[in-house]
């Protein structure tokens, strides 16, 4: 009797409860899948906008001499490229994946705070609209670097307050998004899913969300102090008024270093989902992976000044930050060893998501190696602010974060669309991306070691050869990404996807139909059943 009533009730509420038609579906959406889709599309658009700026940078740097742009505009391009890629492409892409997949992975009907979810997305187009509009302002777009160091950033023209405001908006969006993730994960898991039973992607996002809540307000505080220094007569960072320009760097990097892990921990999560699926074997050392990720998150708060080894810190301070930074290699190593151990004696197949994940493990490790080299303070004095650093962080961000996002997109695309994507096209996209990303960024190690500083629009002729190689690679990488658009445009033409999609897939998201219906898990599922294939 009670069940019948409950069923009737459910039918009343949810049957025929499809999306509204037209633009209102998207503008007023509170559905985690729709919002996830919007986040992902937004981040892809930003990826191309930021990518176009990278093309301007690499075109100018292809040969020595100044051919296309003035130095001011060049500096605007490097600044905007970084801001857009960090805050507009990588972070929203991970939030998009979180929106789509976390409720499906933990068996929740939606995100815990759907209206806030809507708001945290719709702030982003406004924030980036403001940021991009600075390109048209007198004095040009911000050109002081994405790190916004004063006093230089205070020389920005009319764009300055718009830059600060857009950073505030991005911060608000991120904080709301991460509160949503935390509340969802803590409260809405399937009843039998204990914390340590959660999939790795959910775990890494939980940790990431805490990092975001901890550091985005710090960034907001730092840029607010810039704003008051500029317009309200304060001297937080102005030496002439008794302030300290270096203090900004400490505050900025207290945000900036955890930010690095905000961009890589969800990538670890994605890869930790994909490698077991295509190795047909359980993730090796699930619990130690969780501890390692938590450990990385903790350490990320006490290493910030390794970005500042040349500002003139006391010796003891530098020693502390060197040792703490080197320590990060340990939990990061654990992650990599666990992935390799997951593959070991598995039965691997190499579909596109797996290919991107394998490239991630290889190339992120190379970025990790250069990171270890950068931790050695005396050597960092030589590397600091050269192309060696540019090579390092592009290795961890492009074949790191971006490849993980691509891997995740290919992995879950059939669940989203209900059709298999074009595998041939996907593989072509993978190989083109992997080859060109190395042609672009590997020679930059050599440039940095040979003495080429970063953020310069022109260079001495001895750097010409590798710069040309790098530029050719960059154009190739940029064009390769059009293949991904082709994959998306043809995504619905493939054969119908099964519910499980992949032979080795596991977890709750594969128990719902493909495409995932607009509402899923209106009644809580049993997580144990989904994992039985591996038990």
């Amino acid at each position, binding site marked *: 009797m009670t069940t019948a009533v409950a069923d009737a009730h459910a039918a009343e509420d949810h049957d025929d409860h499809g999306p509204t038609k037209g633009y209102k579906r998207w503008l007023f959406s509170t559905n985690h899948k729709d919002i996830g889709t919007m986040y992902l599309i937004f981040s892809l658009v930003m990826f191309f906008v930021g990518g176009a700026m990278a093309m301007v940078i690499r075109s100018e740097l292809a040969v020595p*001499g*100044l*051919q296309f*742009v003035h130095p001011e505009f060049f*500096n605007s391009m490097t600044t905007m490229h970084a801001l857009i890629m960090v805050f507009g492409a990588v972070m929203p892409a991970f939030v998009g994946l979180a929106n789509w997949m976390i409720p499906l992975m933990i068996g929740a009907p939606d995100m815990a705070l759907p209206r806030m979810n809507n708001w945290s997305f719709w702030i982003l187009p406004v924030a980036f609209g403001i940021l991009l509009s600075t390109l048209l302002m007198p004095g040009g777009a911000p050109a002081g670097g994405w790190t916004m*160091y004063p*006093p*230089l950033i205070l020389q920005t023209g009319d764009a300055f307050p718009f830059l600060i405001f857009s950073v505030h908006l991005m911060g608000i969006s991120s904080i709301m998004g991460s509160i949503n993730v935390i509340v969802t994960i803590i409260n809405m898991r399937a009843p039998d899913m204990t914390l340590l039973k959660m999939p790795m992607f959910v775990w890494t996002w939980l940790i990431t969300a805490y990092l975001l809540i901890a550091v985005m307000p710090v960034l907001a505080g730092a840029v607010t102090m810039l704003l008051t220094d500029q317009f309200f007569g304060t001297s937080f960072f102005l030496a*002439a008024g008794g*302030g*300290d*320009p270096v203090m900004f760097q400490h505050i900025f990097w207290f945000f900036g270093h955890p930010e690095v892990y905000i961009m890589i921990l969800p990538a670890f999560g994605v890869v930790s989902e994909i490698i077991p699926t295509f*190795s047909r*074997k359980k993730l*090796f*050392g699930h619990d*130690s992976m969780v501890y390692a990720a938590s450990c990385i998150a903790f350490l990320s708060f006490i290493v910030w000044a390794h970005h500042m080894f*040349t*500002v*003139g810190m006391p010796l003891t301070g*530098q*020693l502390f930050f*060197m040792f703490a930074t*080197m320590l990060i290699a*340990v939990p990061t190593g*654990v992650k990599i060893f666990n992935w*390799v*151990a997951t*593959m*070991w*004696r*598995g*039965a691997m197949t190499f579909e596109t998501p797996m290919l991107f994940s*394998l490239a991630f*493990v290889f190339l992120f*490790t*190379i970025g990790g*190696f250069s990171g*270890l*080299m950068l931790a*050695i303070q*005396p*050597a960092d*004095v*030589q590397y*600091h*602010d*050269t192309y060696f650093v540019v090579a390092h962080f592009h290795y961890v961000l492009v074949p790191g974060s971006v490849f993980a996002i691509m891997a995740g997109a290919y992995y879950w695309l059939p669940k989203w669309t209900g059709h298999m994507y074009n595998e041939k096209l996907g593989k072509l996209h993978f190989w083109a991306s992997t080859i060109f990303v190395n042609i672009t960024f590997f020679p930059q190690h050599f440039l940095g*070691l*040979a*003495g080429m*500083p970063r*953020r*310069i629009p*022109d*260079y*001495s*002729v001895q750097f*010409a050869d*590798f710069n040309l190689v790098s530029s050719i690679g960059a154009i190739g990488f940029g064009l390769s990404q059009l293949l991904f658009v082709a994959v998306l445009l043809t995504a619905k033409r493939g054969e119908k996807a099964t519910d499980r999609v992949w032979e080795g897939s596991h977890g709750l998201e594969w128990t719902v139909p493909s495409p995932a219906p607009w509402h899923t898990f209106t009644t809580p599922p049993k997580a144990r059943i989904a994992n039985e294939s591996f038990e």
Partner: protein
Amino acid sequence: MSLLGLLLASTASADWALNMPRGVTDLSAETYGLHMMVFWWCVAIGVVVFGVMIISLFMHRKSKGAEPASFSHSTVAEVLWTAIPVVILLIMAVPAAETMVKLEDTRDPDISIVATAYQWKWHYEYQDEGIDFYSSLARPSVEARRKQSGVDVSTVENYLLDVDRPVVVPKGAKVRLLLTSNDVIHSWWVPELAIKKDAIPGIVNETWFKPNEVGTYRGQCTELCGKDHGYMPIVVEVVEPAAYQAWVDARKDGDAKFASAQ
């Protein structure tokens, strides 16, 4: 790939330079040594990790009929691959810390030079000799660097790395550099001297070098400092002590004449 790069290094011309210069000070050689030590550790770790992974990629594939194993945990392995990296890190950290201590020891200099950064040039003041001058991008580069200047920059000698007035120091002297800035943050770097330190308004930073070889060493500003950040090079000429004294005398003479003519 980096291994391949190093092998090529021995035969490559300067234009395809692959590695950090050894430099001309004791500390630059130590820094180079640290850099290479960590690099070879990375190569070794890479060979092991990538080696295991590549073997797995070839042996454990479904198309070869591999059956997935069921293990998913090993405490022994976890402890080992936590402990071994800690030991390797300690091996790296000790010599790095030793070099750091030396880098920071600016006591007892023979010469002290105050370098003040401006957008976009350097000003040098020799504290005891009473010499001071501005040092900015050399004229041929200034003309060639303009957008579509029509000048083939490969014909300009030391394009973007030459100045009108270089810093001159004697070989074998401990030179202390005091760095500050008049406007925004800049950074003073000469790779061959293995010295990089920020010039920050309101703060005086110290660093030092002791060149062992006569020669001309070039570097650049390495902290983004505005539109002409790429155009404020640094040139240090290391000369024999006698030549240095002659330069000091000539400078003083020249400065005095210049002052009296005013």
